[in-house]
């Protein structure tokens, strides 16, 4: 790696042992990537506090600073962790801004919808970036790696939340770690739709960047989405492909006795909170069924103040902030069968928690919560109400 004088100084310990360890990790990581240099970042989104069994044990045994060094800097030395050079939350990047973000569904949104530039970083690389303001200049940071690789022609109408999730699951399977471009019979997507599309594509595959010509910022046209390369032959997403995705997501359940309904993944947006409240207003959950809506803490305030939390709680549901059963590994006690409106949760929770899963629309999930039964089915293509 070619380091600047500033970076060499950090590596040599001018700014203390924690920054030196951070720079050492970035050099090892950059060399592992085959990357020649670092770039400056002022926008880091990582996690330093998320509990896992290993981290909890480390913190108990050796204290927070040494646990941070091991988990977030891959270093076994004993030193104090200084304040972060770069704040690790809360800022929306502008187009073209270099970032170091983790959380695969946030990364794909930042790259594709906002036009910022971030790889899918991990706990260690965001930890090191937060102390140095540097990250390997590789992958999505470079112009030549941001053009589309696959063209998907949507032949069935996609313009609601569940449909965007299924299309995303299809796109991830198809494109793997590459970059799909979506054209065809899509409405003007909204924020929840694009969030669901990206989260699903980053689950069935490793997609970190996609383009929708005329919608996303780096693809004014289909040709621009592919840059200097010719536009490839389109792959069709029609009724057959849609049905296959639906069946795939719904192949993990046999019992229709639903004891847990989970909405929002990673977290619900304001629109989804309002829709959930509207669907639950005046209804009452089945005695054997729990319903959780997962939200970020800032939106919990909005849910509380807008009355949505009251409506959901009156129905017997819960609005939970800053968590997710996939990370906490804690579903309601005794859960065996769950239903979700998130393709991402339907994919992950059977593996992580050993649950049976049903995937469907928000209304189908609320129906399951109220009746205790899964009665969802694949609607005819284009039938969105």
């Amino acid at each position, binding site marked *: 790696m070619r380091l600047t004088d500033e970076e060499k100084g950090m590596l040599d310990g001018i700014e203390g042992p924690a920054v030196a360890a951070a720079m050492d990790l970035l050099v090892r990581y950059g060399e592992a*990537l085959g990357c020649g240099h670092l770039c400056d970042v002022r926008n880091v989104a990582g996690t330093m506090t998320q509990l896992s*069994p290993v981290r909890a044990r480390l913190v108990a045994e050796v204290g927070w600073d040494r646990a941070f060094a091991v988990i977030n800097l891959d270093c076994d030395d004993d030193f104090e962790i200084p304040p972060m050079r770069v704040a690790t939350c809360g800022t929306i990047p502008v187009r073209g801004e270099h970032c170091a973000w*983790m959380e*695969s569904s946030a990364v794909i949104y930042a790259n594709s919808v906002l036009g910022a530039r971030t790889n899918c970083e991990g706990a260690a690389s965001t930890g090191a970036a937060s102390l140095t303001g540097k990250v390997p200049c590789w992958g999505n940071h470079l112009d030549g790696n941001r053009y589309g690789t696959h063209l998907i022609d949507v032949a069935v109408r996609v313009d609601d939340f569940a449909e965007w999730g299924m299309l995303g699951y299809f796109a991830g399977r198809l494109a*793997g*770690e590459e970059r799909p471009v979506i054209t065809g019979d899509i409405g003007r997507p909204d924020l929840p739709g694009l969030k669901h599309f990206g989260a699903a594509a980053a*689950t069935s595959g490793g997609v970190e960047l996609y383009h929708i010509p005329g919608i996303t910022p780096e693809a004014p046209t289909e040709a621009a989405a592919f840059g200097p390369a010719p536009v490839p032959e389109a792959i069709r997403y029609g009724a057959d492909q849609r049905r296959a995705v639906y069946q795939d997501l719904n192949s993990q359940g046999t019992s229709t006795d639903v004891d847990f309904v989970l909405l929002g993944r990673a977290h619900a947006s304001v629109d989804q909170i309002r829709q959930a409240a509207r669907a639950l207003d005046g209804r009452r959950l089945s005695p054997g069924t729990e319903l959780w809506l997962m939200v970020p803490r800032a939106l919990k305030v909005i849910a509380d103040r807008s009355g949505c939390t009251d409506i959901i709680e009156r129905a017997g549901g819960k609005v939970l902030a800053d968590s997710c059963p996939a990370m906490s590994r804690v579903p309601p006690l005794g859960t065996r069968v769950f239903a979700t409106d998130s393709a991402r949760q339907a994919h*992950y929770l059977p593996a992580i928690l050993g649950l049976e899963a049903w995937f469907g629309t928000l209304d189908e999930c609320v129906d399951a919560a109220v009746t205790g039964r899964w009665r969802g089915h694949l609607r005819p293509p284009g039938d969105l109400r």
Partner: protein
Amino acid sequence: MVILRGRKVVPGTVAGPALVSHEAISGCGGIDPARGLIIEPRHELFGQSFTGKILVFPGAKGSSAWSAFFQAARLMGTAPIGMIFTRVSTKAALGAVVTRVPTVTDLDADPGQVISTGDWVHIDADRGVVEVTPAT
């Protein structure tokens, strides 16, 4: 014996039996670090242990917690002892770094075709050389 040449991802030398995946591997929802197992229900290696093996796989998929899950496997003593992968990504590269095991990529033949589960594999990551002795 078959010899493959590529480049170092994480330095070091190691030898052991191969566990070969032809599908990308997920960290979160893909492996259980406590038991050292592949746990993705529809994965070709579902239920298999990677502990003490050289993990051969085409690439990393899924959550950005990939590296954290393999790091957790290292801390719990269930990690693979080496890695060979085809598609370089931030997840796989950082994952190999924090797992702290000899790792190579960019090999001159597809390791998923050349290496079979159970073959004895020797990695000299600094020289970028992999020696494969087929299981008999």
